[in-house]
């Protein structure tokens, strides 16, 4: 039995094509992936991302626990700020990549990947049980929240019609609590598209009301509902990692280009020793951005070659709706990972030329 979000009825009424996404019945497209992608870049798009999980961490020692659990330095957060972060295993493999919201010094919310929610929560409980952190309380609140993402250059203008919160005062990776269309909402200036925009957390029971209010408020600005298909192409054009592709229990954050969130000198944390060792030795593999220079589309698991030598594998790939050419991300041997390197992708029986380019793929 597939899990459904509070907006399932809305998607079906809109005629969305529904797919099983990690056990969730989710819309993959409404009008079409390319049209939805371009609408998000040009105007605005509305996404149902209620499948994402939310885990609350609270208590006097919440920060000590989060510092040990995660790889980024959560002590740098101030109230109302969001941090991109990751949870690792002792060997440096990734449990999940997450965003951490700080409400106060003793109250945090983790937004986690949908299909990892149960795994993450079990891991977080295990870590909490194995050490005496003092006063820390974990709550899996995933079922309480709906989450909508409003993304695109017109996102702020559209959202401003439904709230009295001063949106201009919410900087990137910051949030405020306030009402949207009369419903209590966490308004977060974050996203997974590379566009300006917001992720809105409201009560599951309010999801339909907020969705319809947003669609109405944006009707004159060509606001469109966007499915998971375009969510994937939008994030790929930005080289944003997707768990299960660029990150996994067998890929470390250093290999995946997340050295910038891996704070090796912040003190003891799970995976720290393994990651420090890998940093010193040099990462064996590096995540690169690939642009196909011939005709063809790279896809996950296609092999990558440098000359005759097989040097790695594509982790995600698509036709870029913005560039109208094949793009992909791949993990390659670090000695072949320099920007400008010419590789080939094994696509069925052919070798198709590709170049390692500086991300993101589009100007942002």
């Amino acid at each position: 039995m597939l899990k459904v979000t509070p907006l399932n009825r809305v998607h079906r009424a809109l005629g969305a094509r529904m797919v099983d996404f990690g056990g969730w019945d989710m819309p993959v497209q409404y009008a079409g992936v390319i049209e939805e992608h371009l609408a998000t870049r040009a105007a605005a798009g509305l996404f149902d991302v209620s499948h994402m999980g939310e885990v609350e961490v609270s208590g006097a020692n919440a920060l000590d626990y989060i510092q040990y659990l995660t790889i980024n330095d959560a002590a740098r957060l101030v109230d109302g700020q969001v941090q991109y972060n990751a949870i690792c295993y002792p060997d440096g493999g990734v449990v999940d990549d997450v965003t951490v919201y700080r409400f106060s010094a003793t109250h945090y919310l983790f937004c986690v990947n949908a299909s990892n929610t149960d795994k993450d929560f079990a891991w977080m409980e295990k870590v909490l049980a194995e050490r005496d952190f003092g006063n820390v309380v974990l709550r899996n609140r995933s079922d309480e929240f709906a989450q909508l993402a409003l993304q695109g250059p017109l996102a702020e203008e559209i959202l401003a019609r439904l709230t009295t919160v001063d949106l201009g005062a919410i900087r990137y990776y910051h949030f405020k609590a306030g009402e949207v269309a009369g419903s209590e909402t966490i308004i977060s200036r974050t996203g997974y598209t590379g566009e300006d925009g917001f992720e809105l957390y409201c009560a599951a029971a309010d999801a339909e009301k907020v969705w319809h209010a947003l669609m109405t408020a944006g009707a004159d600005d060509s606001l469109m509902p966007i499915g998971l298909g375009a969510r994937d192409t939008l994030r790929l054009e930005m080289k944003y990692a997707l768990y299960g592709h660029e990150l996994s229990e067998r890929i470390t954050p250093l290999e995946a280009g997340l050295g910038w969130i891996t704070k090796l000198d912040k003190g003891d944390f799970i995976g720290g020793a393994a990651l420090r060792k890998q940093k010193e030795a040099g990462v064996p593999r590096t995540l690169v951005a690939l642009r196909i220079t011939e005709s063809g589309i790279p896809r996950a698991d296609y092999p990558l070659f440098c000359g005759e030598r097989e040097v790695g594998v594509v982790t995600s790939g698509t036709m870029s709706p913005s560039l109208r050419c094949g793009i992909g991300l791949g993990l390659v041997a670090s000695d072949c990972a320099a920007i400008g390197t010419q590789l080939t992708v094994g696509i069925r029986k052919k070798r198709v030329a590709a170049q390692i380019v500086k991300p993101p793929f589009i100007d942002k």
Partner: protein
Amino acid sequence: MEFPDELQYTEDHEWVLVEDDSVTVGITDFAQDALGDVVFVELPDVGEMVELGKPFGVVESVKAVSDIYAPVSGEVIEINAALTDEPEVVNSSPYEDAWMIKIKPSNPEEFNDLLSVDEYRALTEED
């Protein structure tokens, strides 16, 4: 959804136009709709042999790669090279502009296994 009466069909959602000495092949309206935006088409070269039920080419949507299967065995005598530059025609004109290959059939008995329009329509309604 449109399924022209004069065509025959396969369970893999190809359409087939049987003429005197050639068989024209493409994918159906049902197939293009299920794929979504088609962004890449790969076809065999003229002169290659194709075999009943075996893949002869590939269509890719933004999200997925799908094989196209030969409805009959024979030699490829013509391909629609325009689809390489304009794969989106598969969505807009699956039965006309987006014909894919013409085959010189080697075994006319294989025609007996093709589906009529009514049989194919029934199949799409099951899915």
